[in-house]
């Protein structure tokens, strides 16, 4: 083949190749942009669902041991907040007196050590007889915490104040079931135009700390009684419903944010049976 002819073909080859590269590049850019949008949307959705899960998981854990009875553990049931006894530990006391309780360490489980001034004690002090119709669980504030021993093993000594006239301390069972609790409030509150789920210890006098968010104003609590009817009376509540709604950006403000929501029904085992 002549040399001149081969040069001409090379120029055409180059032009064709450049055109093809341009076309392929354009397609690649569009695909990359589309993929980036999809990834950002997925990230936003995943982030929102993680916030949903965090809120639902927190409340599910906090409300798991809510009790009913003459003195229910739910004190306030509003659309934006609820106040309740949050159990921080459970165990068996080997000694219960009017001023102190000894908890066997090997029969005590807790998320943290009891804190005087913040935590209180629930003791099952019904008289240990067949026909007893006594007070059942009796609450007493914890005044101090120390170490002791009980039945040859280590024990936690909790100072308490209990009304011995109302609670049959002496006639209770040999091992007394106890629960340690603090009074908590979970709250949906607004901050800088967004709604957050927060919590605070009412018994410790704390202010609300954010737990998860941000959500939209459609987020709310609802409560149902044993018949499934909506109620706001704490003693009638058997299920707690939590609706969380939120938005996440689609593509740097090019399109409107997408919305998503979740509705969760929490059935505390001691209430729902």
């Amino acid at each position, binding site marked *: 083949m002549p040399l001149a002819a081969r040069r001409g073909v090379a120029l055409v080859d180059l032009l064709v190749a450049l055109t093809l590269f341009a076309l392929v590049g354009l397609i690649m850019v569009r695909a990359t942009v589309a993929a980036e949008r999809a990834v950002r949307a997925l990230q936003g959705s995943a982030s929102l669902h993680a916030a949903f899960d965090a809120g639902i998981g927190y409340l599910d854990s906090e409300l798991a041991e809510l009790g009913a009875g003459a003195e229910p553990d739910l004190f306030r049931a509003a659309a934006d907040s609820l106040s309740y006894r949050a159990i921080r530990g*459970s165990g068996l006391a080997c000694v219960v007196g009017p001023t102190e309780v000894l908890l066997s360490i090997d029969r005590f489980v807790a998320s943290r050590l009891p804190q005087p001034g913040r935590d209180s004690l629930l003791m099952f002090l019904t008289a*240990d007889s067949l026909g007893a119709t006594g007070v059942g669980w009796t609450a007493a504030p914890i005044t101090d915490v120390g170490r002791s021993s009980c039945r040859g093993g280590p024990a936690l000594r909790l100072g308490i104040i209990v009304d011995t006239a109302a609670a049959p301390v002496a006639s209770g069972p040999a091992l007394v*079931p106890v629960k340690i609790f603090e009074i908590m409030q979970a709250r949906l509150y607004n901050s800088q135009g967004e709604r957050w789920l927060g919590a605070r210890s009412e018994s410790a006098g704390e202010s609300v700390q954010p737990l998860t968010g941000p959500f939209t104003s459609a987020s709310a609590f609802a409560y149902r009684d044993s018949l499934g009817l909506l109620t706001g009376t704490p003693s009638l509540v058997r299920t707690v419903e939590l609706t969380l709604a939120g938005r996440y950006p689609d593509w740097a403000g090019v399109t409107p944010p997408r919305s998503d929501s979740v509705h969760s029904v929490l059935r505390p085992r001691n209430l729902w049976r």
Partner: protein
Amino acid sequence: MALNRRGAALLVALQAIFLLAGLAGMALFAARLRWSSGQRALAGTQMEAAATGALDRALARWDPLLAESLSLGGAAELPSSMPWSRDSLIRLGRFLYVVRAISERQGPDGAQLARRGGAELVRLLAPVLPDGAALTAVGPVTTAPGATVDGADHVPPGWDADCQPPDSGGIAVQLDSVGRFDRLAPVSSGELTRGADRQVVGIAPNLAPRLTPDGACDRSAAENWGDPDLPGGACAGYFPVAAAAGGSRFGSGVGQGILVGDGDLELAGTIRFYGVILARGRLVLRDRAHVVGTVFADSGASLLDQALVERSRCAVARALAGGARPFRRVDRGWFRWP
């Protein structure tokens, strides 16, 4: 020239292969992480359900003999139907217990995938009933010349070790104005009936104690209503709660416990019963029927032929204590105990 072009293509191809292999490896790693996370979440849910089910099962299959055998503060393993669940019973007081269930699952490598635990406070309940009369009735009581209602306090033969000395008071027949059946406390008649160990409709079986092949009391046998004749025997401490539908009839055998009749009740033949009988309807005892304890009949009673009712405070006390069951869940009874 041609060789150079082939070399560049090979380099590009190798780069592409490495890139694809890297991407595939990352995808596989991410998938593996998600799979592990999913496995743990699944195992956690399964173990939560297993622990919950174990507690419900332990309450539904309450073993009064095992419970009574525990000392205060003592614990015993409960038979578990699932290999990953360990259930135990702890005695806190005379009538107070804790059932604990721990469910745990390991992965193929032996590492713990999930562990969940819960406990349920159990309080045994029984109706509180007076034991001052052999027969308490609302409505007419007729007694045939050969039948007897004895208000003296009797200690059943061989029961002395478990009984207080007999009292000197007591009356044979006490007439009441309001029925006992519908005002039982702290356990209602409905709770007693629903939680009964035995359900009788129509003709009851011939009552007789039954043992398992290893010599334990066989609580699963419908005709086994305890053994009042053999103190110290395997079934001596077994006092079942029995619910009989209206019109039920007992004809033979021996048993003990609490018998609740939701209507008319007839005891005939040679039957012997130790404990408490409550009949919402009319109670008829005929032939050589023999009751030791106390009887409440809310629509009158007829004692015919050689029927005999003997008052026994001890039989009443033992039947009520032995018939105590977790008829009702305790408020705040469930708690986490991992």
